[in-house]
């Protein structure tokens, strides 16, 4: 029987990652700031903490950076993964406690910890996402290619599918994506928040 061959992907050493981080150009740093705002605002973590955690994981080896992936892209992906992990922790948070914790040393019955904050937080997140989702779509007039493209991106359509459906060549497609990014950046310059007036 044929054995499946698992390709060995070479990864960057710790020193290579550290050197690359310390040599970031101005635009690298601004890209990372934008990305950290994006992912932090969508999840329950501060942007600076998110970037610090991504760097820590890159340097302690808990995340491996393939040599064919740029360090900026690698850190962006790490931030995405960490932010998603934080959200999942919130969604899956289960309040566990010993039955003994319901009484104090004298055997008096204590109020049990209220598990509702995590449920409330999750509901607020879901409610906020629903508001933000509709607000973002409303920035683009219904029936326009830009609106259809935003909806398609939200629905996980590939670039090829979007180009075909919207009848755009590569240049027109790239221009449309840029227009969308610019409009969203102007509306939400420091990441997305449903609280924004």
């Amino acid at each position, binding site marked *: 029987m044929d054995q499946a061959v698992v390709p060995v992907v070479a990864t960057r050493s710790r020193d290579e990652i550290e050197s690359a981080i310390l040599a970031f150009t101005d635009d690298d740093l*601004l890209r990372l700031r934008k990305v950290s705002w994006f992912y932090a605002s969508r999840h329950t973590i501060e942007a600076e903490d998110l970037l610090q955690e991504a*760097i*820590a994981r890159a340097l302690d080896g808990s995340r491996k950076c393939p040599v064919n992936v740029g360090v900026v892209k690698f850190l962006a992906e790490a931030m995405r993964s960490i932010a998603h992990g934080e959200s999942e922790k919130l969604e899956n948070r289960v309040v566990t406690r010993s039955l003994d914790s319901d009484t104090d040393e004298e055997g008096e019955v204590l109020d049990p910890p209220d598990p509702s904050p995590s449920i409330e937080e999750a509901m607020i997140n879901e409610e906020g*996402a629903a508001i933000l989702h509709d607000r973002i779509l409303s920035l683009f007039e219904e029936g326009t290619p830009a609106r259809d493209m935003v909806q398609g991106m*939200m629905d996980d359509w590939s670039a090829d599918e979007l180009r075909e459906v919207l009848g755009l060549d590569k240049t027109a497609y790239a221009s449309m994506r840029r227009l969308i990014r610019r409009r969203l950046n102007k509306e939400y310059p*420091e990441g997305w928040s449903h609280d924004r007036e």
Partner: protein
Amino acid sequence: MTENKKSKQQALDRLADALVDDILDASPEEILAEFEEDNGGAERHVAEMRALVEKSVAMANKRRLTAAKAGVASSRASSKKAATPIDINEARRLMNTLTPAQKLTLAARKESEQSDDDLLSMIEDLRDLGVLPIDDDSDGKG
């Protein structure tokens, strides 16, 4: 169209991923110009970010050094523990401090008459089990 709140969250995540891809693919000139236009103070943000990444690297290095020190300390403690000699008279004194249940357990483990070697081995076992403390200052004399 997405139907419920959960799928709207996922839709936003997908849009965010697509826009992050665009940010990563944009040219340096585009990024600098767009940042200045949308947020202003690009130079200040660059300076803040540079300080942040330098601090993050320094913290990661400190963490690694602390972990390395802890590893060395742990390794030293293990080798010291292994090398700590036990005097036979001290071993007998320690055995006398054991409860009958502890003695019975040890006897069952050895399943034979207790020689000096058995006794010393039992004391090592008790130290490994945490029943007896490791005497770091012992010179092996009772």
